[in-house]
């Protein structure tokens, strides 16, 4: 049978109450206990789950409803559980003491007053009230992250449309994760600062991307959540487009990573069109959707989260290396490779990027020769007649490099350094010297960007790290892999994108958050030194609609 009691006028968030329900359910002589605020939705849930008690009909959304399922007919169980509930609530209150004093407010007005610069409202209150609060936030010029779910699609469209018209963004409903300007919102990971901006419909997608990007040695600028329904036909990706534009205008987000489940086709096209207009390199993952191409302009399509993360990390590294290079004057790429297979892969990758054909005849070691770009296999028979292989004797390749002094149209030189048994004692040294000479001969007016990869291990006699250090010292960009090297080379000859002249979105400069709902979210923000006020939300007039309407008119 069900025993029940109501604790009047004591608002608690639902997660705290769920934890308390679980704890109290372990009490002796009890089958199960349900502890909920008396909102209309919760009341019907109590009914459906077999916890209903007639007492609850008088409960308001400000009252805690406690239903005890037990075999015992003894009424004293309510007293016993009542005492346990009080103890649990007290424990929460005490847990909230100590440490830096968290700013708290019980009304929207007071929350605004305590944090006038607030620009974000994090909402984790019951879904039936979430839209109303989000609307209030937008009305007052705040962006919104709705952790809450059970918000109707009509409400979502209305809120997002309103946000767009005010230059704001609504993340969610059902948006679990965001991390903007170092402010962890709801479920968020601590990632190093970096230049990858993440946009994700799903919470765990953003979390996995963030964590894989970190594993790959890169960091993130911002992570913007959208909620699971943003890319549906009904919502049309309103927030996705806002997020893309925000990050496009953000100088710290040099690479964008976008993850979602497959969107409605029309929405997908709209999103891709938007992505193309941004100019920045973007890794897009529409989970489960087969991409017709791997690359479409500035968009690279990934098939899995880890692939998306690796691609984003690679592009991030390319951006970092590109930033260290002077602007190239010649727009042609020349690749002089000691390794044949390396030359072949380089040619293939570059042909893909530039949209040209690789050279299939391989005349005189030419692996690619198109529009002035050339990739040569210096180990081809043409170059090794009567001469040792360039892995043993660098002189032929060095002569080729020296000739670049007379080819100012070549702005980027791609090289490989192959070490190990059998190879030269110190190939990096002779390359570094040659590069220095050719740069001197070209003069300051004709800079030459040199990009190298190193094939070999730390245990090899030449020692990988030493070789890299020698190259780096000579101003040669050492990349981790050929795809990276090729991506950097093509990046350097591509003129910087134009058109992104939007001002930096103020939101990305720093968050000040009003947190409505789960207290722990506010604590996390405070720990990260983000200005936050915890709005202990409760329905107006305890959910009494009649009084709420009167108050609205009593001005």
């Amino acid at each position: 049978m069900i025993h029940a009691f109501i604790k009047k006028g004591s608002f608690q968030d639902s997660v705290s109450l769920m934890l308390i329900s679980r704890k109290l359910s372990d009490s002796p002589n009890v089958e199960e206990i349900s502890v909920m605020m008396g909102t209309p939705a919760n009341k019907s849930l109590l009914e459906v789950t077999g916890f209903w008690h007639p007492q609850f009909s008088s409960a308001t959304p400000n009252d805690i409803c406690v239903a005890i399922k037990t075999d015992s007919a003894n009424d004293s169980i309510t007293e016993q559980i009542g005492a346990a509930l009080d103890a649990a609530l007290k424990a929460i209150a005490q847990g909230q003491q100590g440490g830096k004093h968290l700013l708290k407010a019980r009304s929207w007005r007071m929350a605004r007053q305590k944090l006038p610069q607030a620009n974000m409202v994090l909402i984790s209150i019951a879904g039936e009230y979430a839209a109303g609060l989000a609307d209030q936030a937008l009305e007052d010029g705040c962006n919104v992250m709705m952790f809450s779910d059970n918000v109707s699609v009509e409400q979502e469209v209305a809120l997002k449309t309103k946000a767009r018209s005010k230059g704001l963004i609504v993340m969610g409903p059902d948006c679990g994760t965001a991390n903007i300007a170092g402010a962890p919102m709801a479920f968020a990971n601590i990632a190093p600062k970096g230049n990858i901006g993440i946009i994700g419909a799903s919470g765990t997608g953003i979390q996995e991307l963030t964590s894989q990007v970190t594993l790959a040695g890169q960091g993130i600028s911002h992570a913007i959540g959208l909620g699971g329904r943003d890319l549906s036909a009904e919502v049309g990706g309103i927030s996705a487009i806002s997020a893309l534009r925000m990050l496009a205008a953000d100088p710290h987000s040099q690479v964008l990573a976008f993850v979602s489940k497959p969107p409605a086709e029309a929405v997908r096209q709209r999103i891709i069109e938007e992505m193309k207009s941004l100019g920045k390199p973007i890794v897009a993952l529409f989970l489960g959707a087969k991409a017709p191409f791997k690359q479409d302009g500035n968009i690279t399509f990934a098939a899995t989260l880890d692939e998306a993360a690796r691609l984003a990390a690679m592009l991030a590294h390319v951006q970092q290396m590109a930033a260290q290079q002077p602007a190239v004057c010649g727009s042609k790429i020349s690749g002089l490779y000691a390794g044949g297979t390396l030359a072949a892969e380089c040619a293939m990758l570059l042909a893909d990027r530039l949209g040209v054909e690789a050279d299939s005849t391989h005349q005189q070691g030419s692996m690619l020769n198109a529009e002035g770009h050339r990739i040569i296999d210096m180990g081809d028979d043409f170059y090794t007649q009567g001469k040792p292989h360039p892995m043993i004797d660098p002189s032929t390749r060095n002569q080729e490099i020296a000739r670049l002094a007379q080819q100012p149209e070549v702005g980027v030189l791609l090289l490989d350094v192959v070490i190990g048994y059998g190879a030269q004692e110190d190939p990096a040294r002779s390359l570094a010297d040659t590069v220095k000479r050719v740069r001197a001969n070209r003069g300051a007016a004709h800079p030459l960007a040199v990009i190298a990869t190193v094939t070999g291990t730390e245990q090899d006699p030449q020692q990988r790290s030493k070789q890299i250090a020698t190259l780096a010292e000579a101003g040669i960009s050492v990349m981790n892999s050929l795809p990276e090297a090729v991506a950097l080379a093509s990046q350097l000859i591509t003129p910087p994108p134009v058109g992104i002249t939007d001002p930096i979105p103020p939101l990305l400069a720093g968050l000040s958050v009003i947190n409505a709902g789960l207290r722990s979210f506010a604590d996390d923000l405070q720990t990260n030194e983000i200005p936050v006020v915890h709005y202990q939300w409760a329905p107006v007039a305890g959910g009494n609609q009649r009084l709420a309407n009167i108050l609205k008119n009593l001005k």
Partner: protein
Amino acid sequence: MYASIEQANAAVIARIREARPHWQTVDLAKNLIPQLAQGRKLLHAGPPVAWQEMSGPVRGACIGACLFEQWASSEQQALALLENGEIEFIPCHNVSAVGPMGGITSANMPLVVIKNLVHGNYAYCNMNEGIGKVMRFGAYGPDVQARLCWMRDSLAPVLKDVLATFVDGIDLTAIMAQAITMGDEFHQRNIAASALLMRQLAPEISLLERDKIELVKVMQFLSITDQFFLNLAMAYCKAAMDAGAEIKQGTIVTVMTRNGKNFGIKISGMGDKWFTAPVNTPEGLFFSGFNQADANPDIGDSAITETFGIGGAAMVAAPGVTRFVGAAGGMSAATDISEEMAEIYLERNMMLQIPTWDFQGACLGLDARRVVETGITPLINTGIAHREAGIGQIGAGTVRAPLGCFEKAIEALAEKLGISA
């Protein structure tokens, strides 16, 4: 007529702010309140209440008053009068007065006379009897009677003489502005204000042409009665709130009070109409030998201090009483209380700046709308009486005003203004 509730409320608050209540004199109730001049009438705290509904300590105080007025010579006689309906009851608030706890006030009890010099209105309150077995907590034994007689025959005349030496009386605002920086919130704690008051009175008392022993007794009484200022603070607040109530529009709460059965409020827009809801029982710390089960439901007009914005709302000002805020109380709990209260008051009173609140002013302008909107009910610092007559004070703590009376007031005002839900 004001065009909006906002404007009306602003006008109410402006008058509360402008009010300058001064303590002018002391006189017998019958000389101040015409209703008490004739017949057997008693003032009581809270909204109207009949003898049959009165709680133990209030009944005890009624018996005490009957004995004091010599309408009866024994407890039994007094009870018979009261049971037979031969005593008429009037709420203090209806006659410009306030009374602590039971608030029982009779014709020959001396009252402090507070005049609001700005608006010209008066407010009255009896004088604090000290602690222990006292009438306001329902005790009525011979020692209580003896003290009441001394207050009438000796304390009141001395104070009257002393106050006559002050032009316009004593400026209570000036004392309160200092005392709040010294840790008083003027409900649970008045020791600083009482001492500051004594500092003004003592030299003048010593100069009176009266029996030296009598003067020493008065000085001794004032020097040990920590809550002496409470009754002045209550009349101060009553004078200020009555000045505000004259606007007769808006949603500012002008009275909050309790009679042991009901909690009653008035709001500026509904004139003298009472709105009531069942009163809560205070929780707090008890003198040894007593516990929560002994506690009487909340009584007294002293919640006029919270109506004005001090007392519980100014808890943060009084580190000395923060322990009354529940067992885990401390400075941060006190801050939380005042921060919470700030949600339901419209403005701040910069005459009462609170150092422990970063010199923010005390709350001002309790808005019934905000109470209903947020469900935050005023927290009242209060003494706790034993539920049986004759025992007196058993502890002190806090109690919440019930939400229901604020909801009723808002509903009534909406109806009056023709606002539909």
